[in-house]
């Protein structure tokens, strides 16, 4: 039997490996190209769908805008109503002038011998009382009564006191507590 000795075995082995590598590079690059095209195509399609969506949503928004413009009269009525009611709410929230209560309160506290000539009240809660007392004792009694029951007032100020013939003219300022 004849035996053959292959002296090129090592070289052939190297060239086989090179061929494999070449094939791998070629097939791999082709596959990569295909994969890249798929990805790029998908992104392009996605972009087209997005463009369409943006367009559709924009169209819908414009249609709604047109409808809103046709209802401008209702909107202007609502805006006008809202602004006026807001102003009215602010006006109504301002403190009111409780003149009746103040007058009754002062009348109740005045002992005989005190005459109240003028009472001025304002929204800030200031009450100016001008009056006259028959004598200093009655005036003292009135001032005491005001201070003792003066929990409603922040301060009671005797702004002026004049001694006239047989009477004392006085001016008192009462400041109501601000809640």
């Amino acid at each position, binding site marked *: 039997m004849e035996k053959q000795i292959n002296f090129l075995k090592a070289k052939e082995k190297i060239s086989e490996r090179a061929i494999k590598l070449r094939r791998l590079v*070629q097939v791999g690059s082709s596959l990569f190209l295909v994969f890249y095209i798929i990805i790029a195509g998908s992104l392009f399609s*996605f*972009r087209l769908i997005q463009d369409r969506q943006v367009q559709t949503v924009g169209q819908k928004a414009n249609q709604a805008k047109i*409808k809103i413009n046709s209802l401008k009269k209702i909107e202007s009525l609502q805006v006008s109503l809202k*602004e006026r009611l807001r102003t009215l709410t602010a006006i109504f929230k301002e403190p009111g002038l409780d003149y009746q209560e103040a007058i009754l309160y002062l009348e109740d506290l005045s002992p005989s011998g005190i005459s109240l000539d003028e009472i001025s009240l304002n929204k800030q809660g200031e009450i100016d009382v001008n009056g006259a007392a028959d004598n200093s004792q009655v005036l003292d009694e009135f001032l005491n009564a005001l201070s003792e029951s003066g929990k409603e007032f922040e301060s009671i100020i005797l702004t002026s006191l004049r001694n006239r013939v047989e009477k004392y003219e006085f001016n008192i300022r009462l400041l109501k507590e601000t809640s």
Partner: protein
Amino acid sequence: MPKADLKKLLLKYRFVAFPLAIGGLILILTVFFLVPNISQIIKNRQELAQEKERLASLTQKLADLEGLDEVELSTRADLVLKALPVEKDVPLILTTLSGLGEETGVVLTKISATPGELSTAAAQKKESKTNSLDFEITISGTLGSITNFLDRLVSTLPVIQVNSVSLGADDPEAGVEISLDAYFFPLPETLGAVEKPIVKISTDEEIAYKKIEKVRPPPGGETLPLVGSGKENLFSF
């Protein structure tokens, strides 16, 4: 390098030409196609989100507007306009005061006001804080009628608030001085952007509306009667 060697080298690495061509193609595609596409996708995404938001607010506003009854709104707006006139309506206030005086039995002995500029635009610039017209009136009557007058005054249309009262405690017949604020409010000049949501009436404002709804209209008509009088030509006898 000799020419023969170069040729040999080129032949040896000929197989790299195809992958290199693909690489070049991919590079070109990436620069001129893929990158612009990706940036457009990002831009579209933001735009879509904004458009969706705009659509949602517009749809909501449209639904709100369609839910409003125009007739009811007109009725309410008319009543609120009576409560808070568009401009300084001095004749209306005078009519209201004299009407209330007649109704309650008090005598208006003095009315004074300094309305200033009557045009709303001119008045608005100067009075940015509160739009009110100050009146000083002097009335005389019994204590009961004065009290009644003051009570009716704060519950009439247009809205009037009492600022201060100065009365002779012993003799109200001598005259009670009252300082009043009559309010006005100009119409809004603009409605704002279309995308802006519709303003809704709050509970407090609803309460304020209920309050003026209960108020009786001013006595003696809403405005002074327009009676044609005087000369047609001021400059001729």
